[in-house]
């Protein structure tokens, strides 16, 4: 089969850009990377066949510059653009700009991105398609000064039930959100949310939603082609979240039996059909302890945690994205979609759990990835790289596959122990503390897990064996020669220049 495209521009950085470039390479497709000034020597820029320099490090001057990225694709002769996740991946205007320039955007149509990006619209669409949504009620727009009809708010709140959340229709990031417990005044909370939403989003429309207690976050990977076929590739449980950020993901979800998996999978496929979906997407649900599930939102991109699905299905989701974007049918039969074994992923962050998860910046003095049967690392950094303040602090994803959940946990913990990152602090010990927790081993996960089990002191994880570390450091000194010589040899005289001398940039001028 000839390659569906001759050349693809990857509009992203870090591990996801590297991951997309690798699949392109296997398919015989040439690649163009884009890079900010801070990333000219970054792994993704080195891996691509060509790299185009976008601009200064801040994302709004580089990776979010739609005009520069479209121009780079046209100038380098790319036929399609893969947006990765984050940055412009769920930006309908960018998808439109690509299409208008004659480029194939590797993702769903722009109007699908737009409709799924607006929460109340997505909710209405799902309700109409028979997909269960969290019980809730819309409120009429606030009057001048942000006042609401008190009697109407009370009636709507009583009908939804307590505890409930007041949420901003155009919101995100927890802004314009209020929790109302039974016995509290829903009117005061709703009016406070209106004020906050007006300030933050320029629109004070709010709605009410039942607040589920101890829910699991369970999402389904869906895939659709342009020939009317929509399938799901099973679920991922992503309940282990710190400040709404997933840090451990797995499949299968320990709480699903075959019946529930089938019902949720059918709902996910129905949601994708209702949205007119094309390509790879994710339908997120909240799963209550009693087994009731509710549509949360739909992500119109490849997810960070897609490797666990690739592990258990043995499929390459990026390859399928590219084929579908070229108009080909999904390359899988139903028999290909049968999962096997258990997969787990954890996200390695440049942050220090012992000091309030402060971002940890600096040079990677040593960086060695683990390997072995069933171990995969998706990284966007290399030894000697500088971790800067400009981008997301996730430096790598470590995932494993094993025959069952217990074996997968053991394999992930062993791989984490073998992961060597020196020069910056990481959350590795924290991740290990999650994996070592008896409640995690029992599969008793929910979105409040970390707050319940691993806050405060416990977040730092076990300390290093100080005696062993001292012996190692002393032996290293002894073999290296006198300590004073060593200091002279290794002390950085001046900040090292970025290593961009090794390759030539062939970008736009």
């Amino acid at each position: 089969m000839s390659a569906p495209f001759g050349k693809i521009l990857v509009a992203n950085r870090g591990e996801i850009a590297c991951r997309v470039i690798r699949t392109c390479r296997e398919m015989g497709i040439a690649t163009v990377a884009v890079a900010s000034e801070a990333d000219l020597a970054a792994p993704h820029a080195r891996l691509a066949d060509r790299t185009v320099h976008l601009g200064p490090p801040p994302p709004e001057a580089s990776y979010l510059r739609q005009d520069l990225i479209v121009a780079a694709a046209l100038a380098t002769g790319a036929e399609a653009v893969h947006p990765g996740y984050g940055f412009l991946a769920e930006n309908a205007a960018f998808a439109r700009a690509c299409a208008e320039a004659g480029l194939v955007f590797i993702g769903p149509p722009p109007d699908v991105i737009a409709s799924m990006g607006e929460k109340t619209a997505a909710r209405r669409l799902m309700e109409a398609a028979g997909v269960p949504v969290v019980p809730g009620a819309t409120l009429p727009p606030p009057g001048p000064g942000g006042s609401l009809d008190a009697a109407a708010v009370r009636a709507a709140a009583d009908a939804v039930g307590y505890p409930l959340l007041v949420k901003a229709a155009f919101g995100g990031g927890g802004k314009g959100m209020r929790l109302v417990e039974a016995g509290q005044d829903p009117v005061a909370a709703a009016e406070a949310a209106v004020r906050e939403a007006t300030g933050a989003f320029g629109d004070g429309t709010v709605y009410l939603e039942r607040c589920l207690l101890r829910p699991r976050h369970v999402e389904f990977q869906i895939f659709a082609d342009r020939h009317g076929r929509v399938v799901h590739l099973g679920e991922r449980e992503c309940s282990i979240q710190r400040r709404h950020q997933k840090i451990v993901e797995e499949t299968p979800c320990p709480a699903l039996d075959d019946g529930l998996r089938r019902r949720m999978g059918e709902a996910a496929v129905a949601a994708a059909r209702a949205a007119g979906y094309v390509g790879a997407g994710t339908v997120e649900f909240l799963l209550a302890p009693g087994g009731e599930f509710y549509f949360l939102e739909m992500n119109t991109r490849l997810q960070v945690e897609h490797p666990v699905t690739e592990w258990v299905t043995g499929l390459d989701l990026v390859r399928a994205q590219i084929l579908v974007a070229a108009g080909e049918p999904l390359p899988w039969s139903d028999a290909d979609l049968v999962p096997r074994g258990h997969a787990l992923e954890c996200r390695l962050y440049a942050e220090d759990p012992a000091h309030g998860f402060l971002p940890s910046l600096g040079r990677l003095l040593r960086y060695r990835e683990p390997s072995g049967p069933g171990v995969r690392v998706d990284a966007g950094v290399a030894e000697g790289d500088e971790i800067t303040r400009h981008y997301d602090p996730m430096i790598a994803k470590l995932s494993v596959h094993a025959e069952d959940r217990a074996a997968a946990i053991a394999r992930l913990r062993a791989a984490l122990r073998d992961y060597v990152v020196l020069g910056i602090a990481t959350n590795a010990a924290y991740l290990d503390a999650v994996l070592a927790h008896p409640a995690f081993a029992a599969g008793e996960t929910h979105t409040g897990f970390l707050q319940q089990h691993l806050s405060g002191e416990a977040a730092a994880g076990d300390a290093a064996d100080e005696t062993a570390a001292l012996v190692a450091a002393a032996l290293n000194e002894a073999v290296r020669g006198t300590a004073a010589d060593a200091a002279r040899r290794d002390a950085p005289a001046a900040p090292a220049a970025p290593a961009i001398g090794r390759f030539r940039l062939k970008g736009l001028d």
Partner: protein
Amino acid sequence: MHLEFRTPQGRREVTVRESGGVWRVSLDGRELDVAAVSVRDGIVGFALDGVQRRAHVAVRGAERHVAVDGRVLVLRLADEDRDDQAEEAADTGPHLRAQLPGKVVKLLVAAGDVVTAGQPLVILEAMKMETEVAAPRGGRVARVHVEAGRILAMGDPLLDLEPDQEPVEGE
């Protein structure tokens, strides 16, 4: 070879001697059971109390970053700790410095303000996250070196904190 390290627990003394391929290591004067040593490219293999260990050691100035069994410890070699004294002085001296590079989002105090230990002083943004810089001790803000929007390098002075002028009576 006699080495002095600073660890999170305090000062530790390690002595290393080699004769005829046998290594003897003592910690704070106590001889340890260390055997089968190999050191290459910053990877140190040894047996401690009969248990085989493999550690990675990386050097940055006086710092020794050590990874052992998936845990990391940053030690400081005390004999070559020249920067250390300066840093120690900075801890108690008037300058409060940025501990990470970033952008000043908001100043929460002004010159002349009296602050208590732990009180948030400045909000910095790095890696898309906001971080509060808190007062390491109580005192009076003598001078503010930054303003909102300023981009800071690691170690840039934020503000000067001096002991509150109120004379302490008694003592």
